[in-house]
Structures are given as C-alpha cells and as structure tokens.
C-alpha cells in the first residue's frame, strides 16, 4: 500500500458476509423447506431480504442458517406453502 | 517578498457617479502601467454602488508589486469624471499635498486650490457618438487627460490597453476619444488659492 494510504484500511470496506455478525442467532423460528413438495419457483429466493437463500442450478433452494434471521417472508410468499417456520430449540 | 511597501507609489483617486465607469478606468490605467513594466492595483470602492451616487475607485502604480490594500485616503492624482460633484466632496481633504493634480471633466476651466487640468469630455463623447443610454462615456477619454496632465502612463500604453476592456464597435470611438482628450486637456489655473 502506498505510503499515506493506510487509512483506506479503516475508511473503506469490502463485501463480506456477516458484517453485522452471525445474524442466524437472531432467529426464533427457522424456515424449513419441504424439498419434496417444493415447486422450484424461486420466489423465496427472490424475496429473501437477507440473501440467505440460494437458488441452485437444479432450481431447488438452500437456506443459509448462519445468517437467516427467521423473518418468515419466504414462508409467506411460498405459493404452495411448503416452507414451515419451526421454533428454534436451544442447542 | 520584496515589494513596494515604502517604495514610491503613485496613488490615484477616481471620483465619479455610479455607472460612469471609474472602476474600468482604474483597471485600464493599471494595465497601461503594466505595459511600461510597472506594477499596480485598481480597487473599486467597496460599497453598494448605485447609478448616480458619488463613487470612488482607486489605483496604485509602483515600480514593484504593490502590497498595500487599505483604502487610499489621500492621493497624488485625483481624477473627476464630472465637475458636478466638485461641491459634494472635499477635494483638498483627498490631496496628498498642494502639488496633487486634479484632472476634471468640465465644460469650462475650473479653478481649485490644486493644479487643475480640465477637458470637456462630455463634448468629446457627443461628437464621437459615445452617449449610450443617456450617459456620456467619459472614463476612457479622462485617461487621455490623465496621461497628458501627469505623464504617469504614455498615451500609447492607454490606447494599447483599451481593447482588453472595451469590446465591439465602440472601441474605435473610445480610441479616438482618448486621443482627443489628450490633445485638448489644458491646465485651468496656475496656483490660484480659493480657500
């Protein structure tokens, strides 16, 4: 780094997950997808605020529980209602 | 910074009515001085200028960069763009000494306590078609008078500088006005003291 530009290390930031910590711990309810009944429409992926749902190559979805906050939007928008919001238990 | 602080500086006060172009005259004067290798500054009076009110502008000319920026209270040369303000101002109070020269635009010779030079610049403006929107353009011709009366800058230097400040078709008339004023400027009196 050019002399004098050290401040950019603190002034600038770069994209990385978990910028507000492990937000999965915020969750009270966990979305669980019934993969067998999923119609692979991708709406849960499209509306997830946190970008914690991946819409995979085969159009199935995978939820990143490290960061999912459990808002339940995915379950709400699922047209076939195959996402259940399951109460988290103490591990 | 080696500059004119104590060096010989010529202080010039230009008095006129708002709209007569005193500021431009000061700038042309400084530009003319620059062409002769001199330094200088032209300052407007810092106030709300209104057309018709008595306004001043200043110029300082020196052989080195001029560093002073305070207002000129007493001058070596006082140039008056109209004689009609003579009674409204304290001319003696503006003179550095009794040898301060007064150059005045007047239809006739006027006597003051100072060596006074006069020229009928209004007449020149009328003759040359330099009456614009009812105003006689006299600021440039008065510089011709100043050159004649004081020799501070040469006539040619003034003529050379006019084009930087006056554009378009009136430039030619202004050049002629300066020449005529230079030729027609006369001293009004020797040392006749009124006060």
């Amino acid at each position: 780094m050019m002399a004098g530009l050290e401040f950019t290390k603190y002034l600038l930031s770069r994209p990385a997950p978990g910028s507000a910590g492990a937000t999965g711990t915020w969750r009270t309810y966990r979305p669980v997808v019934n993969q067998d009944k999923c119609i692979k429409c991708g709406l849960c992926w499209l509306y997830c605020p946190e970008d914690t749902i991946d819409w995979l190559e085969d159009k199935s979805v995978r939820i990143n529980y490290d960061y999912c906050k459990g808002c339940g939007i995915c379950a709400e928008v699922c047209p076939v209602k195959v996402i259940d919001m399951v109460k988290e238990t103490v591990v | 910074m080696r500059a004119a602080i104590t060096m010989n500086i010529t202080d010039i006060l230009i008095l006129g009515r708002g709209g007569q172009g005193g500021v431009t005259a000061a700038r042309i004067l400084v530009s003319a001085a620059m062409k002769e290798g001199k330094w200088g500054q032209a300052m407007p009076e810092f106030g709300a200028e209104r057309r018709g009110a008595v306004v001043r502008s200043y110029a300082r000319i020196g052989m080195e960069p001029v560093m002073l920026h305070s207002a000129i209270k007493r001058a070596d040369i006082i140039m008056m763009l109209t004689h009609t303000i003579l009674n409204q101002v304290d001319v003696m109070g503006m003179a550095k000494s009794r040898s301060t020269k007064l150059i005045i635009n007047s239809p006739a010779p006027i006597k003051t306590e100072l060596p006074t030079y006069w020229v009928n610049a209004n007449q020149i403006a009328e003759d040359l078609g330099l009456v614009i929107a009812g105003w006689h353009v006299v600021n440039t011709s008065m510089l011709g008078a100043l050159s004649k009366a004081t020799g501070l800058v040469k006539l040619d230097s003034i003529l050379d500088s006019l084009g930087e400040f006056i554009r378009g078709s009136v430039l030619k008339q202004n050049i002629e006005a300066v020449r005529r004023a230079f030729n027609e400027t006369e001293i009004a009196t020797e040392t006749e003291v009124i006060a």
Partner: protein
Amino acid sequence: MQETIQRQARKVLVGDHAVAEAVKLARAQVISAYPITPQTLIVERLAEMVDNKEINAKFIRVESEFAALASVYGASAGGARAFTATSSHGLFYMYEMLWWAAASRLPLVMAVVTRSLGPPWNIHDEHTDIMAIRDSGWIIGMAQNVQEALDMTLTAYKITEDPRVLLPVAVGLDGFILSHTAEVLEVPSQEVVDGWLPPRDPRIPYVIEPGGEPITMGNMVKSDAYHMLLKKMMDEAMDEAKTVIRDVFASYAKLTGRNHGDLVECINCQNSDYVVVATGAWSGDIMKAISDLREEGYSVGFLRIRFLRPFPEEAVMDIASRAKGIIVFDRDYSTGLGGIIATEIMGLVPQSVSFKGVIAGLAGVDVAPSEVKTAIKDFIDDTEKNGPIRVRKTWLMQKMEGDES
C-alpha cells in the same frame, strides 16, 4: 530559472479571476459553485470558460452551496479533479459537507472569499468565516495579494493530491480587497503548469465508479476506536502537509521565481525584539506600519501566517522563544473569547513574553497603516516601560460616522 520566468505572462486580474485562471491552469474537470458576493466573479468566470471551451470541464449549476460542495465531493470520489468556491453564509451552509469531505480524504480545492456574517447584512471583508472551518480537517491558506491567490490555488492541487496529505484545501482571499481588486500579476503558461502538475490519478486514494471495485466508503466501523484512529491519521496527514507545503512551494518557486514562504512568511521576525502576527490582504498595510516603525528605530518584524491549518506551531514557538513581545492583528473574532489567531497563539507564548491581541477591520472596516502603526507602537512602548503585558483582546474601533453622541 530565468527561462521559465520569461514564459509567464503579465496580466491585470481581480483576485476572483486570478483564482479562476488557476483553476483553468490546473485543468479542473468538475466545477460547481453557487453565487454569493464577493465570490460570484469566480463562478461567473469559470462558467464562461467552460461555455467557451477554454477549459474541458463540467460546470454543475447547483441550487445551493451545500450542493456545490457535495457535487464536487462526488466528483472527487468519481476520480475527477474538482473545484468549488464560496463566501460567508455560503461557507456556513456547506458546513456539514466540509467535515464529511475532509474525513473522506478525497482531494479537493475550494476558494473562500472571506466576508462577514449577518445580521445586519454586510458583504464586506472579515476572516471569521474561513476561521470557523478550522476544526474540520481542511488545510486552510490565506493569500495576501492577487498573485498569491493564483499561486495558492494552483499549488493547492499539488498539496491536496499528494498521497501523504489527501486532505482538502481551502484558499482564502479577502472579499473585495482581493476578490475585486485588479492587480498586475504573473501567470505561468499552461505548458509549464502541465509539466509540473500532472493529471490526477483517479485511484488515489480510491474511486467509486459503476462496475468498479466493490468498495464502500463511509459505513460504520467495527470499533469506535478505528474511527478515532482515522482522526489520528488525519492529524498525521496535517503534520505531513507541513513538509508537503514547504516542498510544493519550493518547487513552484523553481518554476515561477516566486516563493511566498511555507506555512508562514517571516520578515525580520527572527532578529527583532517584537513580532507582529497577522494573515491576509492587510499584510502589506501592516508591513508598511512595521517598515515605518523600523525607520524610527523600533526592532519589530512580521510573521505572516499563510496557512492556519496545519497550524504553524513551530514558527510561532520559535518567535515566542526569542521575542520580547508579540502582537497579533485579527480580522476575525470568536465571540466570548477574542481574536482567533491571538487565541491560538497565546497559549504558546511564555508568560515572560509580552502579548497583545488586537481585533480590527471587522465587517470590512478599512484599517490604515497609520492605525496599525499606532497600535504596535503603543504595545512596544508600554512593554518597554512597564514590562510584559498580557492582553488577549483589544478592539481597534473607528470613529462612527454620523454618530452625534
């Protein structure tokens, strides 16, 4: 050196137009300003230059000073060399952006044509406006004449873009007294300036551009301690700026034959018993007073402050360690405290050294060399007779015109 000096053109320009000329020579790419007297001549001239294609720049005709600074700040973030200018109320309307711009560490240059603050409305000169931004992280210079206004604006780009600095630079020039006063000055040629001031490297310190590196500037930091560290780094950059300013003016002197000094200009300040301190356009008038006093046998010199930030602490300490007395003339004031330069300097002056602060010339009141001379003379005579005095604040008041009482 003679060769390059010859390449300069002599011109007659008012201070505002000289600043515009410098901005043109620096090849600024984005210019934005909002009209306010007595700054307006700068923006008018630059708009004209852009329209006439004398300069290849975008002129953003904003709706406020706040937007003026915000837009040139954005331009700098986008990698352009940018410029704005303002005065007085306009500067205060920018206040929030001033701090944001400085802490973003983006290079920027702004001319501040100093003017008093209302009410009552007053368009005349006073330094209080530019002084009020002294905590914001801007480098702050004050020119003493039209020539220096041009030189300081041009050199400001070299200073602000230096990777050791990367702080914005405000160039102060006295309202009307410089902004509207035409003076003969020397203007270096574009060719010479181009060789000295290369185009800005848009990637220093960083650039925000569509499709570019996905960096973010300005989100919160993990620990407040990092935020404090950034402040410390700004302070270090201010210290670096002292060296950079000295070097930049030295190299500029090689180019033009003109060196106005670095943070300060010292005229007999090191070998005189008494030192006068001031900044701005009245410096010449103060020098006249000093010069007259020296002819009368007084041992008095002048420390002209060219840069208020970074504060020229070393130069002040130096004179404070050897002078018998220091008198400061402020064309500004901090209500409830005193003249701002006097206040900043006083703490560095030992008790054994006589000290006086004089507030004068506020609101554009003309201050004649004779008035300055009397004030200095009184201070020296008083000190010589009674020993060191210590007065932070005195007011040099003029007779009130039309005051019958």
